[in-house]
């Protein structure tokens, strides 16, 4: 579905990503994890063309992403960021249906799809007329998810979608999200720094450090056959927090 071939990125003097090869399989959930600054958000940005690689290339559905193809490709990829990235001048409903309206969908089709998504994401009907400033953090993320799903994309890209939520809301939303992923059988790429979250969602995990992939595989794979002492240290650090009963960093 999505492949990176020797894709690399620098920001000025800093090497954000070393040349990376990665294949995202259709219908599966891939979680990218690693400490902050490891390049995981940059990796996600490469996938929908928000970040343009300095060398190598990114292919979506078999064709390379270029300036000409990127807009069409983005319409087949839903994208959710922390706190939703919702437009404050539009109501929740207008945020969700924005692209459908840009593309000239009929009103009835838009209404049906909106209702479908509202039920799927357990979003209250009364909230649709509210502006983002009038919604709670969890509701904002549900609206962000609806917006990403509106055009029924092939791929969902999620950049720390739950990072800004308090633990109880986060827990509910995790449950709902996993149910949605399973139900829709979408290809999902999720970025997180929380191993618990990765374990909860992932079919496959990519662990990154300093702009490079340290190891890729299932959770069991990484924990039982670490490719590098860093993998073990990362796992232990996160487990340590669980042992103390605190929240993940």
């Amino acid at each position, binding site marked *: 579905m999505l492949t990176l071939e020797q894709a690399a990125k620098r920001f000025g003097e800093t090497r954000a990503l070393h040349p990376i090869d990665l294949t995202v399989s259709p219908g599966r959930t891939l979680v990218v994890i690693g400490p902050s600054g490891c390049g995981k958000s940059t990796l996600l940005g490469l996938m*929908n063309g*928000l970040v343009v690689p300095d060398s190598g290339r990114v292919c979506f559905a078999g064709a390379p992403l270029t300036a000409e193809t990127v*807009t*069409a*490709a*983005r*319409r087949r*990829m839903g*994208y959710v*960021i*922390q*706190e939703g*990235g*919702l*437009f*404050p*001048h*539009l*109501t929740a409903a*207008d945020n969700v249906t*924005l*692209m459908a309206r*840009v593309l000239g969908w009929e009103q009835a089709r838009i209404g049906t799809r909106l209702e479908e998504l509202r039920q799927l994401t357990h979003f209250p009907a009364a909230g649709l007329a509210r*502006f*983002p*400033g*009038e919604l709670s953090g969890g509701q904002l993320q549900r609206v962000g998810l609806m*917006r990403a799903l509106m055009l029924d994309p092939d791929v969902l*890209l999620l950049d720390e979608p739950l990072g800004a939520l308090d633990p109880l809301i986060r827990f509910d939303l995790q449950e709902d999200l996993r149910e949605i992923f399973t139900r829709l059988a979408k290809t999902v790429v999720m970025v997180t720094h929380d191993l618990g979250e990765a374990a909860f969602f992932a079919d496959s995990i990519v662990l990154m450090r300093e702009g490079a992939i340290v190891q890729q595989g299932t959770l069991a794979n990484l924990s039982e056959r670490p490719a590098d002492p860093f993998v073990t240290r990362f796992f232990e650090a996160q487990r340590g927090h669980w042992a103390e009963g605190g929240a993940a960093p």
Partner: protein
Amino acid sequence: MTRARFASRLLPLAALALLLAPLAARAADEVRIGSKKFTESVILGEAARLLIKDAGLAVRHRRELGGTAVLWNALLRGDIDVYPEYTGTLRAETLARLKLADDAALEAALAKRGLRMSPPLGFNNTYALGMARARAAELGIARISDLTRHPGLRFGFGNEFMDRGDGWPALKRRYRLPQADVRGLDHDLGYRGLVAGEIDVMDLYSTDAEIAYYGLAVLVDDLRHFPAYRAVFLYRADLAARAPAAVRALERLAERLDAGAMSRLNRAVKLEGASETRAAAGFLSARLGTGVIADESSLGARLWQRTIEHLTLVLISLGAAVGISIPLGVVAFRRRGAGRVILGMVGAIQTLPALALLVFMIPLLGIGGPPAVVALFLYSLLPIVRNTHAGLAGIGAPLRRSALALGMEARDRLVRIELPLAAPVILAGIKTAAVINVGTATLGALIGAGGYGQPILTGIRLDDTASILEGALPAALLALAVQAAFEMAERRLIPRGLRHRVAAG
């Protein structure tokens, strides 16, 4: 949706500007009179207007447009058809390099420029030098040549007299005057200086009402330095073809207005508080036996007329500025190189004093509404361009990325996301431009655009506070109304989701 709503709210404003535009334009067959910015010229302009109106023609008087050069150029360009002038001014100043020997030569020179002059009105408003009577008697001065015996005398001359070809430099040479203490000052202030003893000698217009009022001694021009400044109406030759009745009406005043009568009219307006219209009408009915009456409009009608003129200036210039500035602001934001040039240029325009900008427009566009509208338009650009740019630049990175990631084209992003998000800041810029525009438009009166500046100008000339307030108060009220209207518009145009944000920029 938001954009459509924004546009539909702006539509009535544009429609209003279009409706008002014809009011600013002149009727094709209207006779247009101009006058210089001193009382005598305004009285003569009113007399001309009343006579032409009496002949049954449509006529309009644009008062106190400026000095000789402004009126002369406006006549040549055809912005006006008639204005009162003095033969000496034309021969010794405007056409000085032709060294015209007499008024016959002057008529020939005018004809070459498509201009004509009426027969002389009957008075000679020459330059003269004046002194306080007691001081002149004490020093035994009666003639200008007597001044050479008193080199310590202090001279105070009007600014125009200091510079003119027939003014102080020529006078000094002609009489070999030795005085070194010579300063330029406002003509009206000269009288006060003379009375207070701060200066000894000033220049006079021989029909000045103040000569009699202050009991001044007028020094004899014994070497005949000053030419005759015989008052005439100067008009375009095409007026004779277009409206012969207007020319006949002007000729009714030939040799009917002597120096004493002119001086009394000046006195009535400057010292006794009569309006120029009433003074001129009184004279015309007494001297010519016309049925002319002072057709002064009521305060309400004057205010209405000026409000229309003022609003026309503001709405057209502001409407055009909004239409141009928002795209300029968008380009400035999208292309950094072009942005620097655009912001630099509109910033540079703003540093020009508004008055200078207005005067720069005269050679390009003449006098009246159009140059004032262009100057106000240029002046309104900066706040709107800058706020459009700032509003767009202030949109946060997450929102930008969201719009991109949705797969929106640049145009859709601009129209549906960027401009609506920047709308509060853009609207604040338009509000700033509008309030500045309302105030600056009062200067439009200086170049004949009318509006609330007209009574302010008259009030300054006549030292009449009531007249100044007649312009200043409505201008201030209009500025407040504009401010209030924009605050209402903000509440209606800005979606609820953006309203908690501060609309500053």
